[in-house]
Structures are given as structure tokens and as C-alpha cells.
């Protein structure tokens, strides 16, 4: 599904990713952990095409197509979803309007017609219910006045409605209490099937108690330095990065 080879990327002239390789196959869940400044968020932004993140070498292919040639909205149309570490507030745009515009934009990209208003309403209400979101929140402006947990829940509802092939979740679990964390885990697990893949970027192994990954990678200094199964996350939790001889790169 996703094939990243020798990826080098700079932000503001500074090299952050320094030859990263990662392959994610259909149906797999990968977790990326790593010390602060290792390049975890940069990786998610590069996959999703954020402006200001410049790829200087390497390639990223998604289902055989070159992602680096595509705009962020085209990548979304291809089926990539980015769960934000800090979901953005958009005053004046209701959640409902936002979701409908997003879904129909993606449908247009795929050559499909708009979803009918009735079908859309049904879909959104069902997804909101599954993830315990108060339907009133759908009428409110996107993320405005939402608590940290509510914002992350909103990300999960968006993900459920947009139904991506690949979800890249950038520290979706950070700053959440245990109840909110369970909701996020529920959102991820509901997406999980043989055709979908998930890339979870996380600081803590806590989320991995609820969403069991197929692979755990350690990202340090712009490269993946260690790959293992879920036990690697437990080792990290116990011994820390330093204990596994992985240097931080916070400087």
C-alpha cells in the first residue's frame, strides 16, 4: 500500500528525515515511536503533502502511484487520512458542512457523484453514534470550543465518515484521558480490516494496549533504527530510548 524509500526531507532548510525506509502492506497496523525531534510529525506531514516540508531525495509510492507529485487534497482523494496532533479550529464552518464538503470533494476526485443529503445525514449520524459523539456537536463550528478529547473524537468521526485506505495518526493519543483514549482506539479498531492500513505515531505505548500493532518502529534522527513487534514498545516503555542505545535528537 505505502512504500517509502530513502526519504530525505527538510523543513526551513534543516534536514529532518535522513533516508527513511518504510513499507506498509494492506491490512497492517504500524506504530512509529521515537524521541522528541526524531522526525515523527515531519513524516506524517510529508506523507500528506503539507507545504513547507520539502522532499530532497527518495520516493513515496501509494498503491503504485507517486504521492510526492500530488497536492494534499489529491492525496486525500487517493484515500489517505491524516489524524492531527492538534486538530484545527475553523470558526464559521459547521462540522456537518465541513464533512459533507470533504466527502463530496473526495467523491468527485474518484469520479463519483455527490452523496445525497439523506444518505449523508444517515452516515454521519451513524458514525457519530458509534463513537459516542453528541449529535449537537455536528452542528457546531469545526472544533471551536471543543475540549482536547472532543477534538480527537471529532478526528475519529471524520475518519469514520471519510473511510480512508490509509490512516496516518499523528499522536492522536496525546493529552487524552483514559476514556477519550478508548474512543480513539475504538475509532481505529473499527477502521481496521484486510484492505485498510494504519500508521500510528505515538509517544507512549499506552495506545498500543488498545490497538495492537503488527509492527513497531523506532524513529530516531530521521531514520528508522529499530523494527519489531509489539514487545518492542513494551521494552521501550520499560527501559526508555537511552536504554536501547537510541539517542535523542531534541537539540
Amino acid at each position: 500500500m505505502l512504500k517509502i524509500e530513502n526519504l530525505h526531507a527538510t523543513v526551513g532548510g534543516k534536514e529532518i528525515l535522513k533516508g527513511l525506509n518504510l513499507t506498509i502492506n494492506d491490512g497492517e497496523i504500524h506504530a512509529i515511536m521515537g524521541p522528541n525531534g526524531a522526525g515523527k510529525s515531519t513524516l506524517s506531514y510529508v506523507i500528506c503533502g503539507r507545504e513547507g516540508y520539502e522532499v530532497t531525495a527518495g520516493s513515496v509510492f501509494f498503491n503504485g502511484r507517486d504521492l510526492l507529485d500530488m497536492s494534499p487534497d489529491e492525496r486525500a482523494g487517493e484515500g489517505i487520512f491524516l489524524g492531527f496532533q492538534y486538530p484545527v479550529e475553523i470558526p464559521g464552518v459547521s462540522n456537518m458542512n465541513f464533512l459533507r464538503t470533504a466527502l463530496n470533494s473526495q467523491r468527485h476526485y474518484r469520479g463519483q457523484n455527490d452523496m445525497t443529503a439523506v444518505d449523508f445525514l444517515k452516515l454521519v449520524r451513524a458514525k457519530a453514534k458509534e463513537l459516542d459523539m453528541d449529535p449537537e456537536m455536528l452542528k457546531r463550528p469545526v472544533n471551536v470550543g471543543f475540549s482536547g478529547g472532543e477534538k480527537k473524537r471529532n478526528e475519529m468521526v471524520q475518519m469514520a465518515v471519510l473511510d480512508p485506505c490509509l490512516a496516518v495518526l499523528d499522536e492522536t493519543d496525546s493529552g487524552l484521558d483514559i476514556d477519550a483514549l478508548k474512543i480513539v482506539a475504538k475509532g481505529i479498531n473499527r477502521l481496521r480490516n484486510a484492505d485498510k492500513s494504519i500508521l500510528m505515531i505515538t509517544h507512549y505505548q499506552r495506545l498500543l494496549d488498545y490497538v495492537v500493532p503488527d509492527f513497531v518502529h523506532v524513529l530516531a534522527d530521521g531514520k528508522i533504527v529499530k523494527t519489531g513487534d509489539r514487545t518492542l514498545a513494551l521494552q521501550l516503555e520499560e527501559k526508555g530510548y537511552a536504554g536501547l542505545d537510541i539517542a535523542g535528537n531534541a537539540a
Partner: protein
Amino acid sequence: MKLYLDNPQIETDFEAVKASLPGLADLRRQAMARFTQSGIPGPKVEEWKYTNLGFLARENYLPAGKSGRQAEIRQFFDQAHIKDIPGPVVVFINGYFNADLSSLPEEDGVDFSVLSHNPGNFHQSLQASEGSSSLNDLNRALVTDGYRLDIAPDVDVEHAVQIIHIATSGTEMASLRTRGQVKLGRGAKAAIIETFIGAEEARYWFHMISDMVLESGACASFGQFQLQGRNAIHMTELHTEVSDHATFNHVNLQLGAEISRTELINSFTGEYASINLSGAYLGRARQSHDIFTRINHDRPNCKSRQLFRGVLDKGGKSAFQGKVVVARDARKTNADQSDKTLLLDRGAVANAKPELLIYADDVKCSHGATVGEVDPDQLFYLRSRGLDEDAAKGLLVEAFVSEVFDDLENERVAEKFRQYAAGWLRKEGAL
């Protein structure tokens, strides 16, 4: 600085319209005399610092002819008329009342009169803002027509009254000067929607002064949509007096004209009253919008709120000058003001000059003015969900302006407002 004095044309203008409107000759002559004393405000007048009227000394505007091509007039009428509102419609063409297209109010307690039909009746009301400014006097001297709407006490007018001002393509280098008078009696309630529309290419000077009085407990909603042609000069003044327990809601949309100047001058004449002014101004290349508001909190326990949003594309210019004066004994005043401008391009210029003059204790006043660009984080968030750049920008700009629509009680008017704004944004490639 007296620019207009150098221009002999003004005397000719006056000669041309003097004979019309019998019964007002003295009043107009006096207004003309005051105007020639003070002249057009020059660039050193603080209130006019963002709109230079120097060009008026070089350009001669003659009173416009009454008629125009029927097909063109019809087209403008259809564009401006909100058909879903079944109320009365009053049409002015090139500054003159047009009976054919109008359907006047017939409801009991709603008294409507036309200036050119009965000038003597306007004598008293025309003195309302006499001498308040030289342009106000110029309008009084050269006015060709206008209307007066009187709502009797306790009458709740069923449908909004629509007033449509059309400038035809025959108005090249013409001036259109009209007058409006609105009075709501004690406890009366009414809504008015005034639309200004005109020929895309013609250079004309539209100039309208309105005076509004709200008696005790009255409630007025007054919307103004400015869709003049791109070479037009558009100037309006709206003077409003709001008595105790009365509410004045004004919403304003500036879309057209090369130069627009909107003055909203408000005074509280009683306690526990409220004034809400909101508006949006959208400007593109060669276009300048100047919004000038004043709220005189002369009485205690009153509330005012101002909310303006501007969007400027490359080469567009705007000014917001909002002044709130809280008099010495106006305790418990609550006054809010917010003006935000979004620049779609670095080559646009927005000026904001909020002024708060507070002479009373125990008041709550706030103001905020910002000028900014589309937020890149918001833009990326929307794009990451599948919206292309134009759609994402359009949604953000629309959302930015939408705060102004949210205030509109009448959903049909709000819809029209949204349509106009969205149409503008689409044309600018921002939607």
C-alpha cells in the same frame, strides 16, 4: 480646503434642479449657501483621510436623466428584488421615483410618501441633519427625489419593505441624489431592505442621505446592499436616533463601486435602547470601501454592538473608522466593536481606526481590529480532508464573512446576502 468652490459646475447643477421640488426652494438655497462656504472635505480633514475626494474638483457631474432602457432597468430590478418577500417594493431610477415598477405599502398604519410628489411634506424632515456636513448640505441642495416612511405606533409591519435604487448606463458623469426618511412610532416594528444597483461601466455619483427615528420601544431592521457598477462613486449617510427601549439593527454589504463611503451616525435619545451595526465589505483591484461609524452614547443603560468584516483582493483598499463616544452621565453603557479584514493578497490595503471616547464611569466598552491572511493551518486542515485549494479558501473566506449574516433575523435576507457575497468571491476566484 474648499475643493468644490473652484468648480463652477456646481452652480449649473443647482440651476438645473432648483425649479423642481416646489416649496423647498429656500431650504435648498440655504443648504447650497452653507455648502459653498465649506466645500467638499479635503484630504486634511481627519474623517476623510482614507478617501481623497480631490477628483471631484476635476470631474463635472450633472443631474441624471430620469429614464433609461426598459430592458436594462428590468434586468437590474429582477436582480435586486427579493421575490420571496411578498411586501411592498419602491423603485428609484437614476434618482427619481418610478411608479411603474413600484408597489407601494398599503398596510394600515404605514404611511409612505414620495418627495417629488409632495415636496412640502418633507420640509420639516429635511431639516433633520441640516448643517451636519457639507456633503449632507450638497445633497439637500441638489436632491431630486426621495421617500418617507412613517410607521404608526404599535404597528408591526408584516413584510419587509424593499427599496431599490437603479442607475442605468445613461448615467455617465451624472449625479444621483436622493433622500430617505424613516420614522417608527412608539412600539412599532418594521424591516427595510435597500438595494443599490447600477450599470457596470458608467461613471456616476450616487449620493443618498437618510434619517431614521425610532421612538420608544420601536424595533427596526435595516439592511443595505451596495451592488453599484465598478466605476461608480457611492456615498450614503444614515443618521439614526434611537429612543428608550428601542432596538436598531443595521446590516450593510459593500460589494460594488470604485469608491464607496458609508456613514452610519447613531445617537441614543433614551435609556435601555440598543444599536447593532454589522456589515461586510468586499474589495478588489481599483476599489475602495470606507466605512465610517459613530455611536453617541448620550444616555445611560444603552447597548451598542458593531461587527464588520472585510475581504480584500489584490489592489483593493478599505478603511474602517468606528467611533464610540460615551457621554459623562451615560453610566452602564455597554459598547462592543469588532472589525476584521482578511487580505487575499499582499497587494491589498486595509486601514482600521477604532476610537473610543469614554467620559463616564461604570461602563463596559471593547474594541478589536485585526488585519490578516487566510490561516495556513486551517487551509492545510481542509485540504488534508480533500478540499482543493480554491474550495478550501472559499470556505474559509465565506466562514469569515458569515458572522455578519448570523445576525440577520430574516432568513430570506440572509440568503440573499450570502448569495451576493458568494457571487463576489466566485468572481474573484476565491470560491
